């Protein structure tokens, strides 16, 4: 093992998660490399310093505030429940479509795209209806999408 390879093995060696073989190889390298030995000692020193550094504790009102926030939460799956409450499935579908059309119109006008559906919702094709229902599901889950895109976005390191 050489100095460059330490980048992939030194941390696991120091935190005790390296395999027996990995450990042996790092030991061999450290025995003959003063620079990497000094780095390893430095890492241990950093870890001790980090362990000694406290973080602020949660405030005494943490739970109370969380309960307040939970209390005002809408029930889960509010759209599906709304649909279930409505006596007729067709009425439920129509309501969902109306909401979707409203949202679509708002976003479309903001991005300056033509929005014919918003002007004449009655004349929509089957295909347009289908797309709107799909959009509804995306709207309901947009937070998940946001999280996923945040996770996949490359971070500067």
């Amino acid at each position, binding site marked *: 093992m050489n100095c460059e390879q330490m980048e992939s093995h030194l941390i696991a060696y120091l935190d005790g998660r390296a395999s027996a073989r990995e450990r042996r190889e790092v030991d061999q390298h450290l025995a003959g490399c003063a620079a990497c030995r000094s780095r390893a000692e430095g890492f241990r020193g*950093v870890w*001790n310093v980090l362990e000694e550094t406290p973080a602020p*504790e949660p405030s005494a009102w*943490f739970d109370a*505030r969380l309960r307040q926030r939970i209390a005002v939460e809408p029930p889960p799956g509010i759209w599906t429940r709304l649909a279930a409450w409505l006596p007729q499935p067709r009425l439920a579908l129509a309501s969902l479509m109306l909401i979707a059309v409203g949202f679509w119109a708002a976003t479309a006008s903001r991005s300056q795209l033509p929005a014919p559906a918003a002007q004449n919702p009655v004349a929509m094709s089957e295909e347009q209806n289908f797309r709107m229902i799909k959009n509804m599901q995306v709207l309901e889950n947009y937070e998940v999408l946001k999280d996923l895109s945040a996770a996949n976005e490359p*971070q500067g390191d």
Partner: protein
Amino acid sequence: MVRSDVQLMLGVKQGDEASFELLLQRYRRPLCHFLNRMVRDAAQAEDLAQEVFLRVYRARREYEPSAKFTTWLFRIATNLALNSLRDGRHRQSEISLDAPAESQDGSEMPIEVADGAPVVEEQLVERDRVEVVRRAIFALPEKQRAAVLLHKYQELDYDEIARILGCSVSALKSLLFRAYETLRVELAPLVAPEASGPGPGGNPEGKLP
């Protein structure tokens, strides 16, 4: 018998409030600590920690124990922290970079004191030391910072951290290496005295082998 995170979460899914309460007790502190070190603003960190619990609560009906609970929890926390830092960057750029750290992070953090209060001077030295470390951690690039916090403070395994950060285990290892290398240079003045002998606040009982 202690119920596992997954058992508790399945309880929450069934509508058991007490299970949620237990998860809250278990992870309130680690989440607040993690977020505090991530965003370095006590009030904001607490707000984000609540948001994490809120999202867990919201997702309870759909919960399936496919991954470790901590992976899920800290993935939510990490994403929220990164989004929050991104949103706040513009705002922060308007604040003078030379402003004292105290005004940025509201560090009214009480210094933990053992029996018998040490003299004020010792408290100040300790406070400076804590501040130097917190600044050094915060100066790391965000992904490196999250990796260090999850590795050193949460002690999650590599596979879990890699999943949380959305990278490979080998990428994580070099991420950690580079982060600790930066900290080794930045914190050299704090590390050096201990290498030559036990200094104040030395930690002979470190978890490392």
